[in-house]
């Protein structure tokens, strides 16, 4: 646990909101892919959190609580405005063609482009489980789904990411061996969906 998280476990949660803004913005940007929209989303989240602060249980995970408000606001806005371009089959994303470079490293800029092509749902679960440090159980509670759903969604997101990076086609993506996709999909023993 980071000291910032530890600090957030005690005291008046209103005083901890400012400390959570960087994490909220990171999550919001990963969802919206737009800094202006993300900042609006974080501001809405802060206002809602302040207005409902009595519903937060001191000693529990403030960041997870705020992330829940943020994602609920994001999806609510999405339903209202229908702004996101639907790309369930990744047709739009097929324009991306990325491989590891000659020394076998996954170039970060290429990775970012592939990540940006994922659906909001897939970006969300990868950020929550793969990067922000939340457990599958915490992520499941946030998303109001079963833990198994988080795991299968994570698997699907990893599979999609591998497809976008063209690691799944069985060619010599890394060092002359097939099945690199399995590695991308197989973290923590989570089976492919």
């Amino acid at each position, binding site marked *: 646990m980071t000291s910032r998280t530890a600090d957030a476990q005690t005291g008046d949660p209103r005083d901890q909101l400012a400390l959570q803004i960087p994490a909220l913005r990171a999550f919001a940007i990963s969802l919206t892919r737009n800094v202006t929209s993300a900042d609006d989303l974080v501001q809405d989240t802060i206002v809602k959190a302040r207005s409902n602060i*009595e519903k937060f249980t001191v000693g529990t995970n403030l960041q997870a609580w705020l992330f829940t408000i943020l994602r609920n606001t994001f999806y609510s806005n999405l339903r209202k405005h229908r702004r996101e371009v639907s790309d369930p089959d990744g047709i739009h994303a097929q324009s991306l063609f990325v491989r590891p470079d000659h020394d076998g490293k996954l170039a970060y800029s290429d*990775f970012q482009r592939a990540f940006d092509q994922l659906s909001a749902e897939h970006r969300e679960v990868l950020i929550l489980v793969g990067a922000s440090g939340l457990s599958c159980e915490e992520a499941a509670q946030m998303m109001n789904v079963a833990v198994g759903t988080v795991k299968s969604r994570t698997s699907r997101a990893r599979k999609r990411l591998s497809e976008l990076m063209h690691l799944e086609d069985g060619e010599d993506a890394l*060092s002359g061996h097939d099945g690199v996709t399995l590695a991308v999909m*197989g973290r923590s023993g989570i089976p492919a969906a």
Partner: protein
Amino acid sequence: MSGNMIQDRALAEVTEQVDRNLQRVYQELEREQIPDVFARLLEALRQKSAVNKDAGLGGSQ
């Protein structure tokens, strides 16, 4: 070293790279400079809460 072992190692390396990149995406976003608007918003909410408290309307607004 068997073919399977070499493949397993290759797969593990790619997995690690993906995970590192995911964490880097998040950490870079987290390190971005926070716009002043958030400090102003928090201060406005704090003042509003203080005013409501003084007026006996409760402190959570």
